[in-house]
């Protein structure tokens, strides 16, 4: 970790916070990604178009990043089977647990929601467990 990493993390986080604040103060909605995507899979009247526009914004922002900072998308060498299982867990888990890193970790904690604090502690902990198991047991990568 360099000072630049730290500065970029803080600045990037501030942009995420700004985005969540715009969504909340103007649209009255929580900028939780799993909820926004899930709401498109289970559509309700009046709750579809803003979600679609938010997703379009995510992709447009991604395209800008890809054009200007392609290193933002450095991938990790994880076997496809692990990717598929992980994706299923993330999709099912975020819907069952009503949120992900953005909805619970940023928006919920900012409201000091007990549920979001509990959820965030839980997924951080299980994230540490999974990273350890995949990196050091499954792929047997020693501490580098």
């Amino acid at each position, binding site marked *: 970790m360099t000072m630049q990493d730290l500065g970029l993390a803080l600045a990037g986080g501030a942009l995420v916070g700004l985005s969540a604040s715009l969504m909340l103060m103007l649209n009255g909605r929580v900028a939780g990604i799993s909820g926004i995507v899930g709401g498109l899979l289970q559509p309700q009247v009046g709750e579809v178009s803003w979600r679609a526009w938010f997703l379009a914004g995510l992709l447009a922002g991604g395209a800008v990043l890809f054009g200007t900072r392609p290193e933002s998308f450095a991938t990790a060498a994880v076997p496809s089977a692990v990717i598929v299982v*992980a994706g299923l867990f993330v999709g099912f888990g975020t819907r069952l647990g009503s949120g992900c890193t953005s909805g619970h970790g940023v928006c919920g904690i900012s409201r000091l929601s007990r549920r979001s604090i509990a959820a965030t502690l839980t997924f951080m902990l299980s994230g540490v467990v999974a990273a350890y198991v995949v990196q050091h047991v499954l792929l047997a990568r020693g501490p580098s």
Partner: protein
Amino acid sequence: MKRMNLVAFVSGVLFALGLGLSGMTQPSKVIAFLDVFGAWDPSLAFVMVGAIAVHMGFARSAARPAARPLLAERFLLPTSTRIDAKLVTGAALFGLGWGAAGFCPGPAIVSLVSLSWTTVLFVAAMLAGMLLHTATMARPRARLPAAPSGAPRSASPLTIPRTAAPQGDNQ
């Protein structure tokens, strides 16, 4: 409604730029953050610090009884305060996937533009997981036989149009 869509689009762009700048769209970096027993890289903790620092004041002001959003009738915020088995089990499953692949939903969607095979595979599996949740755990109204087949679920008489059902979710 048009202005709300514009706000949503701009918010999406800012959200994506924030995730990309911060390092959240790099699964290798996310794994290095969560792999505290490896070459630990704690920098991503500051993403949450930066985001909460900016958002908390607004989130607290939105919680005031008389507060109203600028473009909508009211705030649609989660109302549940119960820490139940669903919440904890769901969060635990999500964390397992996050730590294994290095992707959470937002960064995975933003990274789709790179058209990397891994990312596309992850997002496809994630959507499948969400649909699996809908199919197996959906609220009872989703299975009402009265709803005409093929009609959007929102046409169900039990759903209040425009305002959506109050949810305990961080939607």
